[in-house]
């Protein structure tokens, strides 16, 4: 053992070498500390992480390729738009419209048509003049066109492709796109004229509260008082006023991409457009129900322009009294045989 073990000689040369080594090592450690300290002082960050942070925050860069938002590397909002459109909007939109249809069907089974409480007098009064009727049907036809084409673009993939096939649905959808894009601005014209024309009749007042409390006479046999527009019509008017304005503005943003609006604005416009349009469509189902099978004698007012005085007294008594006092013409339903005759009831 002793022959194998030789204790180190501590010659001056070795001690010198060790000292130099220790010196260099400690210098090295010190320099590392210095680097760390200066690093912390300057708060250096990872340049690559910084780069991706810029990209993810939709920071725009430079691109030699010119065009709409070509300098934006990744846009994050598209995925949000996709999730909202394909998820809650498509799902709850369909549920809302189906629920409305079912509720109206159930109400019809429960209440049936709201009939006239008294026999028809045979005398009629003018409720909607020719311009108003043309305006109503112009806007209504465009509304229905826009509704069907719009719904086809949202739900056609799920509902119509299984029926028409991809090629067939594509041919239909391209017509839908064009009809929707062209009919839209014409609808806006109708909507604006309608709002201006009927604005003064739709200002809410006291009678509306009572009308709502009595459910507009739809439940029970009461006939709450109403002026030319009852509270239900006013509610539809103001829905069209606000939601219609939203649909119109967002629709114009979507319809004219030639102004190079950014995708985020388009996505927001699309979501607004879809939500408000679905609300309008659901409300319109109620409007159509009340105007057709829901109420006896309502449709003839918008078709012929004239309503029976019994109907006028039942649904719009205050308006009827007003026009009677003004001495407006009340006539029999067959103007060709009783032309020129005016009666007062």
């Amino acid at each position, binding site marked *: 053992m002793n022959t194998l073990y030789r204790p180190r000689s501590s010659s001056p040369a070795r001690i010198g070498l060790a000292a130099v080594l220790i010196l260099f090592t400690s210098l090295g450690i010190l320099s590392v500390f210095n680097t760390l300290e200066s690093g912390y002082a300057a708060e250096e960050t990872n*340049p*690559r992480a*910084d*780069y991706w942070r*810029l*990209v993810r925050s939709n*920071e725009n*860069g*430079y*691109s*030699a*390729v010119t*065009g709409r*938002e*070509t*300098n*934006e*590397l*990744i*846009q*994050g909002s*598209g*995925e949000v*738009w*996709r999730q909202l*459109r*394909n998820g809650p909007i498509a799902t709850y939109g369909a549920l809302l419209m189906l629920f409305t249809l079912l509720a109206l069907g159930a109400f019809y089974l429960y209440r049936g048509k709201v009939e006239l409480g008294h026999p028809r007098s045979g005398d009629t009064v003018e409720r909607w003049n020719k311009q108003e009727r043309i305006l109503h049907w112009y806007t209504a036809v465009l509304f229905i066109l826009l509704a069907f084409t719009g719904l086809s*673009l*949202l739900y*056609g*993939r799920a509902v119509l*492709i299984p029926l028409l096939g*991809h*090629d067939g*649905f*594509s041919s239909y*959808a*391209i017509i839908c*796109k064009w009809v929707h*894009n062209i009919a839209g601005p014409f609808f806006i014209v109708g909507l604006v004229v309608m709002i201006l024309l009927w604005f003064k009749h739709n200002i809410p007042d006291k009678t509306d509260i009572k009308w709502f409390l009595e459910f507009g006479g739809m439940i029970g046999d009461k006939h709450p008082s109403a002026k030319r527009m009852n509270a239900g019509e006013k509610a539809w008017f103001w829905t069209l006023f606000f939601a219609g304005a939203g649909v119109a503005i967002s629709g114009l943003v979507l*319809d*004219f*991409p*030639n*102004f190079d609006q950014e*995708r985020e604005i*388009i*996505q927001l416009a*699309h979501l607004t457009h879809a939500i408000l349009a679905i609300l309008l469509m659901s409300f319109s189902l109620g409007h159509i129900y009340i105007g057709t099978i829901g109420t006896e004698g309502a449709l003839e007012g918008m078709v012929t322009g004239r309503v029976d005085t019994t109907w006028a007294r039942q649904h719009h008594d205050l308006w009827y009294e007003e026009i009677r006092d003004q001495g407006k013409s009340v006539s029999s339903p067959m103007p060709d045989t009783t032309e020129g005759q005016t009666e007062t009831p």
Partner: protein
Amino acid sequence: MARMKFLCDTERCIECNGCVTACKNEHQVPWGVNRRRVVTIDDGEPGERSISVACMHCSDAPCAAVCPVDCFYTTEEGVVLHDKDICIGCGYCFYACPFGAPQYPQSGLFGSRGKMDKCTFCAGGPEPDHSLEEVEKYGRNRLAEGKLPLCAEVCATKALLAGDGDKVADIYRERVTRREGRPNTWGWNTAYKD
């Protein structure tokens, strides 16, 4: 089957736009449409980085999810393609795409959109391979010729990689281990000679 992927190495891209030009020429893309573009962040400042970006051929492609007429399909190799005969030019895929890949030639009034055009990973469209129809609508089908996308092939610094995702990842991994002047894989050069 290989899953095709693009990868652009930010440490290598020098923003020469060779990929953009090669693509445009190879596929005779219409005026105003660029299937690929190079975006530079912090342009002109120290640490600027460039990336060449086109359709990334996503696994759960947002464009396909929002398409009202369902014109997108994914090939066995993971390439996202679309059928221009079905496309109605609504623009939804452009709204949804994170990478700004879908492009539209303006076809009429008020900026109305024509059929969407985008990177095909040089894989053509639904028409028969190498048919005139396919070339006119989608450009060349290099994948059917056994070739990979031209943009990556012409890339001078090999920043842009295209091909089998596993191989692309291997190449990139290999690069990363050797970056910054010497291998980051400590001891490998001594231990493993291959």
